[in-house]
């Protein structure tokens, strides 16, 4: 099949108007030598057939509906309000593009302005961009923002930062004159003494995560104070959903708060598309990567919205731009905006509360069995590391029988450790089943 509208007569008339006899007359610029005859990928199929084919692929995947999953580690199963799906499937939003022409794009522009506003409020920062690719690249962009383009130096990263994020930041920084110093955590959280010990020389910024990879909530204030005291930027990677109950990093001294917006109403979808968010202090505004939407007025003084501060961007600044980002994750930002509006002031608190209460319920019940214990005795949000007495392979087998995915293995943090995530999507009876399995180990 194809999506070509023309009938034979249309094509005939167009060719006639152009003054040629067949479409291939338009290819005279293309060397004969490189012309091909098909890719050998086979004939196209019809819509019903493509549906069947894709249903088959889909049917070969497990999902959080068919298995009870306690896996987090950077992507989270949360309740997605039906309103979010509904609004974001409006073609007026999803079949548009970047709002280059403001007057024809007020819907998207205003929605992003609102998104930016809520991200700033949530993170305690002054300026937010219109989105980045995902949490890991947002952290990497934050690191790039912090460094000078030409002078060497160091970006410190806590070892309690999601290892994938660390890897992405490293890849991004490889092209820069700077290098990365890993700072070992102490019993699950960042330790200032370790920064002192392990980072020497000029430190541009220090990146840490809260709640961090192990689920532990960091003392953002203490770390930021220290980092800023050393003349570096404090970059906090945050779980936005946790910020309904946890203090905004920006209010505790973080200069840049970046992270993964997926918990804000974005489906798991095997890892993407997700949403990189970033909020920064006013002073960093002109260094921000990506799009920024601003409020202004029209000819008649009526309020309206436009892309602004474009002088930072690639299409104007080219090689001198703050970043190369062009297409971003606007529709995911819309999802997050609708989610945040839906939850609102009280709902953000309540969903955060449910995550804390559920995860602590499960952690407590697991510990009560005596078969496993929390690895780090720290406050946590919705993830924690649990160390089993039994061999971890055996543990996984026991859960598998019950259709439960108990978490992911964390080999570095002890032979039989598992990183377990519990959100508001789990019910008491779900968790009790988990505990049953542990009891029987």
């Amino acid at each position, binding site marked *: 099949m194809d999506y*070509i509208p023309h009938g034979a007569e249309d094509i005939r008339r167009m060719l006639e108007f152009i003054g040629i006899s067949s479409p291939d007359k338009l290819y005279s610029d293309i060397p004969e030598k490189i012309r091909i005859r098909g890719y050998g990928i086979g004939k196209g199929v019809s819509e019903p057939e493509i549906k069947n084919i894709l249903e088959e692929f889909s049917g070969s995947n497990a999902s959080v509906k068919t298995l009870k999953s306690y896996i987090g580690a950077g992507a989270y199963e949360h309740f997605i309000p039906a309103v979010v799906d509904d609004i974001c499937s409006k073609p007026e939003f999803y079949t548009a593009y970047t709002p280059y022409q403001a007057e024809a794009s007020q819907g998207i522009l205003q*929605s992003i302005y609102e998104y930016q*506003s809520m991200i700033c409020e949530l993170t305690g920062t002054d300026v937010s961009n219109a989105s980045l690719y995902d949490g890991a690249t947002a952290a990497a962009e934050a690191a790039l923002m912090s460094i000078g383009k030409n002078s060497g130096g160091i970006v410190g990263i806590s070892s309690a930062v999601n290892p994938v994020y660390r890897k992405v930041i490293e890849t991004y920084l490889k092209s820069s004159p700077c290098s990365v110093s890993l700072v070992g955590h102490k019993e699950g959280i960042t330790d200032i003494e370790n920064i002192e010990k392990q980072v020497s020389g000029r430190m541009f910024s220090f990146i840490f995560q809260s709640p961090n990879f192990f689920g532990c909530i960091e003392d953002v204030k203490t770390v930021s104070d220290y980092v800023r005291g050393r003349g570096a930027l404090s970059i906090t990677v945050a779980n936005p959903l946790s910020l309904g109950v946890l*203090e905004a990093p920006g209010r505790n001294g973080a200069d840049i708060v970046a992270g993964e917006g997926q918990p804000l109403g974005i489906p798991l979808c*095997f890892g*993407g598309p997700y949403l990189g968010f970033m909020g920064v202090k006013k002073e960093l505004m002109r260094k921000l990567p990506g799009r920024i939407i601003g409020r202004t007025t029209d000819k008649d003084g009526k309020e309206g919205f436009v892309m602004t501060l474009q002088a930072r961007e*690639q299409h104007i600044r080219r090689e001198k*731009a703050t970043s190369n980002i062009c297409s971003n994750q606007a529709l995911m930002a819309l999802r997050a905006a609708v989610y945040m509006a839906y939850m609102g002031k009280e709902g953000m608190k309540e969903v955060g509360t449910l995550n804390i209460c559920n995860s602590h319920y499960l952690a407590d019940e697991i510990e009560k069995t005596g078969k496993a214990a929390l690895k780090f005795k720290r406050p946590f949000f919705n993830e924690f590391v649990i160390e089993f007495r039994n061999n971890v392979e055996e543990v996984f087998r026991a859960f598998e029988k019950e259709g439960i995915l108990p978490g992911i293995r964390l080999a570095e943090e002890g032979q039989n450790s598992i990183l377990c995530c519990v959100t508001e999507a789990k019910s008491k009876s779900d*968790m009790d089943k988990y505990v049953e399995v542990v009891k029987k180990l």
Partner: protein
Amino acid sequence: MTTKEGTGLIFEKSVKGRKAFSLPAPVIKGKKPADYIPAGLLRSSLEFPEISELDIVRHYTGLASKNFSVDGNFYPLGSCTMKYNPKINEQICSYGGFRDVHPLFPREKVQGYMSLLKKMEGLLSAITGMDGFCLHPAAGAHGELLGLMLIRAFYDKRGGRRRKIIVPDSSHGTNPSSAAMAGYDIVSIKSDRDGRVDTGELSKVLDDEVAALMMTNPNTLGLFEDKILEIAEMVHKKGALLYYDGANLNPLLGLCRPGDMGFDVVHLNLHKTFSTPHGGGGPGSGPVGVKEKLKPFLPVPVIREQGGILDFDFNCPDSIGMIKAFWGNTGVILKAFAYIMALGDDGLKKTGEISVLNANYLRKKLGQFYDIPFNRTCMHEFVISVKELASKGIHAIDIAKALIDTGIHPPTVYFPLIVEEAIMVEPTETESKTTIDSFADNMAGIYKKAETDPELLKNAPVNASVKRLDELKAAKFPDVKWDFKKRNSQ
């Protein structure tokens, strides 16, 4: 219907005590965060809007009605390939076995996804003539960055780092910007009189420090780089690599392949050529394809058969590492996969062919009024210049705004930079002759207005939800977020 509900910020609609959310009760009644977490870590306040579910729905229904979109409007935004986004692909994407799958599920439980991604790599390799593909990049620019990192790694491994990337002056802004991000110095070369890479200029700058030449083919004027084989030879002779910005692949579908032209690295924009929606600015997907010699450097993880199942291999010693959490914008890739499978060899060929036919038909039509600086057979798009209207005080932006009043989304303006007062038009193959004719008629009408009543254009748009917006003011006095405090004190 544009409604009153659609005006005003959502924050202005907030009323204390209203709520939309609906959540289950806590597992243990009466437990609060403070029971588990030290008070010092807890939040003091959060000024989010308070608004009912219906009011949220009305708010966004109102916003949607203020937005042009492919489903509602012809959208000939040059360089962006705003083609029709098939509804079937949106439906597919919502299947539970795609949507509700965690990326860290045990591999044996997600073989549907693994084999789909593997197949997709193969399809894209076949379509581009490359030897391997990485699906991770989230957009075209991300793909460029990856491509340039691969090139860097290639030279690092060989020894003999090179520090320059050449880009034509007609190139897209992301090209030099990505190259800079990858740590390169940028050398820009002038286009020749035909609007193409000037081989003379090229040979002047092509030295041993050049890592790669980045090209878009057809280029941003919509012209096929007819000396491409010669250029490839020049570049390769100098030991440099050839990079293909695939944003403009659409017209070449079924016709010829960058791999066969001599390109070593390619990125594609699935959100352009392969019909996935642009989503108001994203998400996109920018897979990168490479020739054999660059394969070892591709990011981890790589999909490989291991122990009878398809698994992710993280153990690739020469890999540049990771460039994104997880494995790409899977939800976008899914749609492009369905599109390619549905079209097949025949459908893809027709797609390319008609995108060229539509562009040339429209070029001929608009050429009756407008100046087209490089006016010859084009591929999928072409560029008008309205610099002659400057004497009437009319600029590309005025034409654009006047089009808004006709219900058509304006073409790209002021790009490529090498054309003064540029208007870059890409109709795509999914638009009918009727739509194209009506666009041409509107453009003719605007041209006449520019000559007879330029003030009218300067005042456009008048039919949109706002009149012309003050961008200067926005940049000078940035208002980039709502002030929650001010509201509370009101």
